[in-house]
């Protein structure tokens, strides 16, 4: 299936290559570079490319291209999903997925890739299994290793791979047994010029951090499971129980994982936490424009809105901006033409306001379209859809775990058209 993998950095250098079958010359990447050249923006490079002898499937993550070479028919999503899984694993191991980190840990990366794929077919992709075979680098271990000549390859053999629950390793032991669940909801919305909602929906995820000894069997139930319109689960969740009782029953992986993601149907009315009053105009003469934005709370359920941020991709013609903000501060990147206004906490008594002028070179016609505003925000202790976890029970183990649930609402792809 997957024949070879090339890692390519932003400027187009191949800095790592791995082949699972016979070796393919890196000249195959030239077709990709050609497409990259044409696309200008790395985001716009088509993910699937055809060359005379091969097919190239590329994923762009963290300013890196993961380019895989395929020779025969294979579901493209299979490859894309796997490449993202590789990037996730790097992130998990090294804290970030960047060129520098990969170059520093090239041996670990190679060992990982060797284990993740056999003859181009995924072998072990569960982070728990991998971590048993290849230990993630820590500062302490690297010191010990250099002093003693030890290695970061586990001498134990992975038992998880054999069991029917490959996501959990055997013999887990903690002195403090704890299970935390974060319910994170994101609002995807498009608001039009007048502030009416064109489209809004809520996407949620439950991120878990479970550190429990032995083989615990957990059951998590909701107060109002009917709200959840469409769900997807970590493989550990028993689907049958969900179908019949609407509870999540699972033996959790050890450590951090995403338990489920869900979607609250767009038919339901979605509460929009903030309103935006904006006026952006460009003048026909005088080569300048004016901008004024005010943000205020709308439906926040009595909670404070934090981490408020407005991002605007200005038209190419805008040379510079001269603005004043009543709260927070703004930056304007001259090269990318991105205006970022970092507001912070929203104070309902004194609404944040940004106003001033935009300057353009004279003689350039005014832009056709006003730029749209992308809003970022965060509300702690609130799940905007109203989803609530009612209880968490544990079976199979004797000790009493410490349990906790946290709710956060964020803005997802929240866009205001102007």
């Amino acid at each position, binding site marked *: 299936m997957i024949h070879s993998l090339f890692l390519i950095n932003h400027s187009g250098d191949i800095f790592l290559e791995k082949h699972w079958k016979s070796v393919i010359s890196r000249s195959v990447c030239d077709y990709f570079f050609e497409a990259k050249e044409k696309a200008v923006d790395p985001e716009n490079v*088509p993910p699937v490319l055809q060359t005379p002898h091969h097919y190239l499937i590329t994923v762009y993550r963290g300013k890196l291209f993961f380019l895989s070479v*395929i020779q025969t028919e294979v*579901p493209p999503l299979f490859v894309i999903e796997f490449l993202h899984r590789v990037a996730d694993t790097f992130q998990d191991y090294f804290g970030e997925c960047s060129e520098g980190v990969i170059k520093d840990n090239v041996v670990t990366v190679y060992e990982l890739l060797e284990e993740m794929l056999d003859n181009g077919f995924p072998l072990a992709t569960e982070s728990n299994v991998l971590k048993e075979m290849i230990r993630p680098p820590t500062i*302490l271990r690297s010191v010990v290793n250099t002093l003693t*000549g030890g290695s970061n390859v586990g001498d134990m053999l992975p038992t998880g791979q054999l069991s029917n629950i490959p996501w959990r390793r055997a013999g887990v032991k903690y002195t403090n047994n704890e299970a935390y669940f974060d319910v994170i909801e994101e609002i995807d919305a498009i608001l039009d010029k007048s502030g009416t909602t064109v489209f809004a929906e809520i996407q949620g995820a439950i991120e878990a951090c479970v550190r429990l000894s032995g083989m615990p069997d957990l059951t998590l139930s909701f107060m109002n499971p009917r709200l959840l319109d*469409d769900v*997807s689960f970590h493989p550990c969740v028993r689907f049958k129980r969900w179908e019949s009782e609407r509870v999540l029953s699972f033996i959790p992986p050890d450590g951090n994982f995403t338990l489920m993601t869900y979607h609250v149907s767009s038919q339901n009315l979605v509460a929009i936490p903030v309103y935006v009053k904006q006026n952006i105009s460009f003048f026909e003469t005088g080569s300048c424009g004016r901008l004024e934005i005010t943000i205020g709370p709308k439906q926040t359920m009595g909670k404070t809105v934090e981490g408020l941020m407005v991002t605007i991709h200005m038209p190419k013609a805008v040379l510079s901006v001269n603005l004043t903000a009543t709260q927070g501060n703004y930056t304007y990147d001259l090269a990318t033409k991105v205006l970022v206004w970092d507001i912070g906490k929203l104070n309902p008594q004194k609404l944040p306001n940004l106003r001033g002028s935009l300057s353009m070179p004279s003689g350039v016609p005014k832009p056709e379209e006003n730029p749209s505003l992308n809003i970022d925000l965060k509300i702690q202790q609130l799940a905007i859809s109203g989803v609530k976890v009612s209880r968490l029970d544990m079976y199979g183990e004797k000790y009493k775990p410490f349990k906790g649930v946290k709710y956060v609402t964020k803005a997802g792809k929240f866009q205001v058209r102007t």
Partner: protein
Amino acid sequence: MEVGFSLRSEAAGVMRTALVSAENLQLTLKPEPSQEEQALTHTSSPKEAHKAGNEDLKEMLESNKESLKLEAMKRIVGLIAKGKNASDLFPAVVKNVASKNIELKKLVYVYLVRYAEEQQDLALLSISTFQRALKDPNQFIRASALRVLSSVRVPIIVPIMMLAIKEAASDLSPYVRKTAAHAIQKLYSLDADQKEQLIEVIEKLLKDKSTLVAGSVVMAFEEVCPDRIDLIHKNYRKLCNLLVDVEEWGQVVIISMLTRYARTQFTSPWKEGTVFDENDKAFYDSDSEEKKDQTQQPYVMDPDHRLLLRNTKPLLQSRNTAVVMCVAQLYWHLAPKHEVSIVTKSLVRLLRSHREVQYIVLQNVATMSIQRKGMFEPFMKSFYVRSTDATHIKTLKLEILTNLANEANISTILREFQTYVKSQDKAFAAATIQAIGRCATNISEVTDTCLNGLVLLLSNRDETVVAESVVVIKKLLQTQPTQHSEIIKHMAKLFDNITVPMARASILWMMGEYCERVPKIAPDVLRKVAKTFTAEEDIVKLQTVNLAAKLYLTNSKQTKLLTQYILNLGKYDPNYDIRDRTRFIRQLIVPHEKSGALSKYARRILLASKPAPVLESAFKDRDRFQLGTLSHSLNAKAAGYQELSDWPAVAPDASVRNVEVIEPVKEWVPIAGKAKQQKSDDKFYSDDEDEKEEEGSDSSGSEASGSSSSSSSSSEESGSESEEESSEESEKTSTDSGKSCSESESEQKKKKKTKRAALKTSEHTAADSDSDENGNGPMDQSGSSSSLESSSDSETDSEDDSDSDSPPPQKKTPAKTKPKAAVKSKKEVSLLDLDDFSPAPTNTPQSSVFSSSLLSDLEGLSLSNVSSTMQVTTPSFGPVKTYELLHHMTGKGLSAKYHFPRQPCLYQPSMVSVQVILTNSSDHTLEEIHVGDRSPASLNIHCFNTIERLEPQASVTVSMGIDFSDSTQAANFQLCTKEDQFSVSIQPAVGELLMPSSMTEQDFCTEQKKLQGMNETSATVAMATANTSSQAISKQVLSVANVGVVSSGQSNVGRFAGRTVSSGAVVLVSLELQETSSALLTINTEKSVMASMLLRDLKQALAQA
């Protein structure tokens, strides 16, 4: 690990200090790695430094210290990762293969797998280590030994690998068996001759009940013998039931395989009498209606079919996007129409995922939304475009929105489009205008609104927007026969300001076409453009000539001089197309003594009313590919793509899937509560099974985990028992199924024919409208590509057409229009696709499999009804046999392999085309590789162009043509580099000297009658049992000889036809099945020597299973 954890949790304080000191330590340790880095960077620069660096590594590897060795290996792996050559260290590295240190060992494995192919002799030294490890009591060591052993690509050890795989396949550990399944594919790619033996192993592993093995063995099945569907029968139900517990990657593979399987085994759940692309009506049908339908035409779904649908449904909730997409395509291709819509939500959910995932999902949704608007209409808003989306995502969303548009939602969609038109992304804005045009033609209510909106856009400041609007307006006006002279006048005014050639050409064409509606303006426009004629783009010039000609015919008084002027300019134009056109037009319109009959019809030729173009989705014909596949994504057949067969008219015998009731052994109960209890197959479809599972899941838990190892071994036993029992049975049924298969196949064909007839009318119209487009001036090549030649070609073409029969296209025979339609529609796609999926450049040497599909496409064009059956009988070409031309040891580093791509030779029709792969496995560049002297001297070879340079490790594929004059005498020639010459020879198998010819059964019989007596060679051949189905037969025959399948009405006779490449003599092969194990093979041809050789080869192929 454990120690680390307790350390951390118990003594966090101690840890902190340790960390601080660790950081200090790291600082002091820093210089060492930096030296390494230096060494690494040095390797890239001068050669001496490179050597020195490797010498240094060699010393480290030969030292006694483990740590030094490990350090050296890490640096070597670093070199490999960077793509640097480290092959000269092979002897030093390979010594460490038996090291005790696990990490060192693993790194040596990495090295070994990478370089073993190049250093085969040295690699052999390590084999014994692996052979020993294969017997290790630890299953992981056994597995990893097998993994590395099978990854070492050294042909000499094929027998050892085969033995190891066979042993591992019956290992007690499922993990080892899984590794064996992976090894099967590796061995197959190394040596395809082992296929038959490998199939046996696959058959054995398919019976395995472990979820670990299932995914891997199905993968092996798909790679090695995807057409041996008979192997699946017995395991079908087991696979369906295990599916939920298989790891996610395995799920994808199994689901795609089962989709293919189900299409051959079950009857269509889609209602009879409805065409495939029915729209949302079925979806809205209430259940009661459904029931009524069913009473009229009782369709009962096969319980096994239902089992598959039911067991895949939960996987829609998988976190793995590939699994979700795979289930979605399964439902799309297999489920009754009203059930397909359950996948919608899940697909929409995937749109939240990464950009690349979105791209693929949107492509599939686009294809689905053409046929089933209703599925996605409720989720229309999820396809709204955000300004931050990537351009190709935007375009796809736009495509979907356009597909979803109907009378009810068009106003919402148009409002949304208005926002997009103003987008800063001008390519996207242009695509939106196209989309508006499509909406306007599809929904007549809004045509006027759209037209007015587009006219407003004509005053837009951006040129691309204006140009696109002009083009779309032109198309819309054509569809609207009503008066629109106001708009035309408006556009005439714009002519001065528009500079985009396509838009200018569009306006000119419109002036000419509607010159009678704007009699005063048109000559004026001609006058203006005459002034600037020499400075215009070619496409504008062509339209200027057209306009002049049309005006000359309608209004010669005013425009005679102007026309003459333009024709004079055109006569001396640098572009030959324009000169051509000018000459043609002059002959046509200017009265002349010699100009005969044609000029009488000039008016009718030039001013024929042209039917409107049809604005279609670029995804219209994507549904010929299975959804979710690479081929669908590229809109081109990818190598190894397996076509979904049509539903059989009558389901093959369902009892082949029955498994004998095994005595209820305690099956290996999966632990995680998703557990299933042992099911005897009579309970498969009973409803209470679910409840039982519920109980099972409750009771499972810690106790189940304890018993897993013992129960797995017991299941192993039961597995072998059932094997023995079933083996006899399966033999019996396999012959049965063979028959029933072939029966159903012929019926299938019949059904197809009727379907074809039903579709014919629609094809007619499609073809019509399409050839009409050719008559529409330049706009049908709108947007992009279209070299000038092609545009002018199609223009003249169409004019010729309209000339021969003036109300042009309706009279065309379908045989003529159909192929055209096919070509045209392909072109359409690439035009509308923007730059996302540029089709492969065709002039470069293509992979053989690809070209063979191309070939079959071409055949499809010539005789469409034959091609349909050809597709049925030749599902896939097996991997092409590659022969060694020059070994790298004798070739001083240059190695060459060749194969017969089985495509018509480009250079001379009498030549057999041969593709040669030249590889430089030496460490220096080879220069001037070319073909030297040849013998016999009369040998006619078309050589490849001299290859100036071949870098080390690089390989290049070149194609040659050789005229073997229909003899298997070897072609000897010399392969030369700058310094050396190597004598090589290509000896063709007799089957490669043929080329397929397509003929009907009747033609075949008449040809056969002509070639009897002396020209007939026949023999009775023994047939392997696996070869009794007609599919298997044609596969075997096609693997030996390059012949075409002749569709046959009789199921027990296989007919194949071909011609010899050089002399074109007909070669007819017919195979008549007599009993189960023998057949009469007859070959009719004038070339009796070839006949006997071919007979021998075929006999051999058919005898081996």
